[in-house]
């Protein structure tokens, strides 16, 4: 289990929108730019790590009950994406690391792979 606060701290990430509860704990991580693959995952309590910053990233998370999204490679969420994320109580984070670096750091602090 990893606290949102630790993700923010270790990755030097910014919280773009969300409940503000930094003590929420996340168990699993899944990294992909392909929403087709994300939609096949049925794990609960998941952080989606992605470089795909469009509205479908948020829609996919809404349908899949994913509550945490981390954008890597300095990809920025648009206003429209933020609005849709807030509406669905999804926490959005942004960081400047590559996907590989972000994943290795997150794994080190205890985030688990789905498979």
């Amino acid at each position, binding site marked *: 289990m990893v606290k949102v606060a630790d993700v923010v701290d270790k990755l030097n990430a910014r919280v773009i929108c969300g409940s503000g509860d930094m003590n929420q704990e996340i168990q699993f991580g899944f990294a992909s*730019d*392909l*929403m*087709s*693959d994300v*939609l*096949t995952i*049925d794990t609960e309590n998941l952080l989606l790590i992605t470089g*795909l910053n*469009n*509205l*479908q*990233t948020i*829609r*996919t998370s*809404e*349908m*899949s*009950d994913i509550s945490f999204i981390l954008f890597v490679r300095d990809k920025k969420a648009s206003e*429209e994406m933020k609005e849709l994320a807030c509406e669905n109580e999804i926490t959005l984070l942004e960081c400047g690391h590559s996907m590989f670096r972000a994943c290795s750091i997150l794994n080190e602090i205890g985030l688990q792979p789905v498979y």
Partner: protein
Amino acid sequence: MEFKFEIEGGNFSKAGSASSEVKKILKQLNVNPKIIKRTVVSLYEAEVNVVAHAFEGNMNVDIDTDKIVVKIEDRGPGIPDIDQAMQEGYSTATPQVREMGFGAGMGLPNIKRNSDQMNITSKVDVGTELEIINYFG
């Protein structure tokens, strides 16, 4: 209860809005969250398929006390070989669709996994009709 939603071909900024409405309704009805997820993932895959592969379509939703029946019909190129389309990895998606994060050929098999019943019929150069049924119990 019956609902009907329009789906615009090619419009990725609206893709998912019909499925999102259905999710809100099912939540209000206190349907089991696992069944909601299975259902809306199926609907979203189907909705994105209309946006990605067809010209226009609609989603007809019929919610009963024990089940939800959804028909997604579109006007479009149709599917020449449904068995082939049902295989994981088969996709004719354009580069634009791939840029949006889709086109892995996972959608139809994923709908099959996430629905209790799935019926698909299609006519080349006319369109495709997909029926998804999920039981609440």
